[in-house]
């Protein structure tokens, strides 16, 4: 009797659960699952715009063949956009961890500093920053150059190094890296906040023990800070990777958008599908590796 009552209670609760999920199930099937299935179909078809919408005709793997044999940009773009994510992710996590550790301690104007470091998120996720980068900073006579490709450039620094007699080639690669870092700072806002919350949640007693044992700051970082924040670090790495893959300035996203705008819908779908499989593979692989390395305290 009792058990029966329990089971019906559970069943009743399940009903409520489905109620909470129902809008999402409708949404995800209409606007994600169904479009994904359609994308697969489109990628094997030729699309023509007829009197009543799109008409698809099956062409086999023609679209795929086009991209893997004829189109020379495709392969390059794919490899570049997947490969470039790795160094920029590494730089972003290093940078955001560093800033988070600096912002952790109490000091005057800490609130202002936090606001400034998050400010890029407000602006960088929109189109404005790339317009500033490509159309304002280069052509404004302030910089003198025809087109600037980086947000911040250090012409004086370059001159100093040139005066010191550093060879031009080496100089170029150094300034290239420095400029790259400045661009990445604009992409680290969310990551800094995530790391900040993780660093703030480390119990103070951990550090007290370490101090009693005479640990140096270096040891504290590697033995306490890093392992404790490693679960957050995993989230940050995956977030950064996805951010990189989804960003408007990503070569593949641009390629998909361009094909769509030129009404090459079948090509757009094919590229989209290949790219989406690659992204899933990379993100899956990285999170699998990281989940083995990260330190999860027993709860």
């Amino acid at each position: 009797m009792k058990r029966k009552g329990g089971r019906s209670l559970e069943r009743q609760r399940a009903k409520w659960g489905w109620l909470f999920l129902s809008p999402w199930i409708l949404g995800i099937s209409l606007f994600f699952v169904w479009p994904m299935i359609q994308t697969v179909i489109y990628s094997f078809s030729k699309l023509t715009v007829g009197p009543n919408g799109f008409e698809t005709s099956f062409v086999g793997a023609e679209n795929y063949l086009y991209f893997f044999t004829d189109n020379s940009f495709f392969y390059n773009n794919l490899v570049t956009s997947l490969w470039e994510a790795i160094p920029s992710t590494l730089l972003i996590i290093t940078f955001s961890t560093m800033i988070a550790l600096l912002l952790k301690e109490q000091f005057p104007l800490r609130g202002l500093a936090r606001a400034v470091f998050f400010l890029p998120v407000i602006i960088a996720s929109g189109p404005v920053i790339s317009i500033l980068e490509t159309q304002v900073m280069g052509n404004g006579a302030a910089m003198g150059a025809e087109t600037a490709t980086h947000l911040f450039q250090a012409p004086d620094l370059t001159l100093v190094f040139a005066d010191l007699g550093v060879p031009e080639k080496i100089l170029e690669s150094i300034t290239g890296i420095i400029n790259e870092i400045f661009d990445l700072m604009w992409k680290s806002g969310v990551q800094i906040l995530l790391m900040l919350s993780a660093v703030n949640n480390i119990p103070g007693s951990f550090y007290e023990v370490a101090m009693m044992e005479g640990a140096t700051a270096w040891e504290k970082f590697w033995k306490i800070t890093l392992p404790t924040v490693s679960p957050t670090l995993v989230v940050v790495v995956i977030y950064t990777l996805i951010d990189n893959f989804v960003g408007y300035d990503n070569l593949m996203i641009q390629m998909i958008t361009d094909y769509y705008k030129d009404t090459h819908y079948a090509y757009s779908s094919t590229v989209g599908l290949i790219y989406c499989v690659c992204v899933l593979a990379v993100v899956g692989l990285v999170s699998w590796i990281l989940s083995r390395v990260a330190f999860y305290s027993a709860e």
Partner: protein
Amino acid sequence: MDWSRRSLLYKRRLLGFGGGLLRTIFLLGVGYVTLYPLLLMISTSFMSVSDTLDATVVWLPSGLNWFNFQKAFELMRYGEALKNTVKLVIPCVLLQVCSCVFIAYGFARFKLPGLSVLFGLLLFNIIVPSNCYITPVYVLMTELKLINTPWQFYLQALLGVGVRSALYIFIIRQFYRTMPKELEEAACIDGCNPIQTFLRIMVPNIRPAILTVSVLSLVWYYNDFSMMGMLLNGNYPLSVVITSVGSTLDSNMQYLTGQAISADLKILRASILAAACLIVVLPITAVYALVQRHFTEGIERTGIVG
């Protein structure tokens, strides 16, 4: 003994001071570099052509020159674009936040058969870029007769598949899971059904998460030009309008002068673009300035990760 202890003390104090100084210098430098493009944008937007060519004028223009703003306003039809933005963004944010808070509760607190499959689907939805499956969405919206209207975005926001909705559902779910189960059990014993428990107990308790998600949602909807540019045809919001200001300027200038663009006009073009960028980011920055304190503290204290 005494001497060595004192020297240790001095050493520590010196290190503390040096560390503080280093940190200040480093943060100032990084802060400057972060703000540099924005400062440049503000300064350029007020510059007249003669100011830009004048070597003595570096950051501060010789006077407040509103010409660039006037042109930017006209070119973008700012008033209209701003109205479109508000019409799109505000309902979307409200619907998205409400739906994500609602749906996330279903993911966090119910044991359902097949929930892990659905959760996997949610993760997929976070990872897969929405541009990859845009064509079928376009077709679907055309069939639903919603294409080119704001309603297509409202519908997606309402059903938990708006811009980055999956991420917000994930964040709020993590947050729900950190709350003690006893709260809900007590409510259940007091005779609340799950909807009442949700509204009276859970929602008031996750206010920091709601604030965080609202700000992120506002920012990402306000800045989205990819989705909106692809699914709309006219009545564009600011984020889409700004992307074409440069080419509009070019064609206007070519029409006016009938020849290739001269150096002076190039400078003017950059200044007008800077002004346009400034008035585009101004509304969202103002909103952020109002809520940033609660927002950054909210993220920090609660920790999105949970």
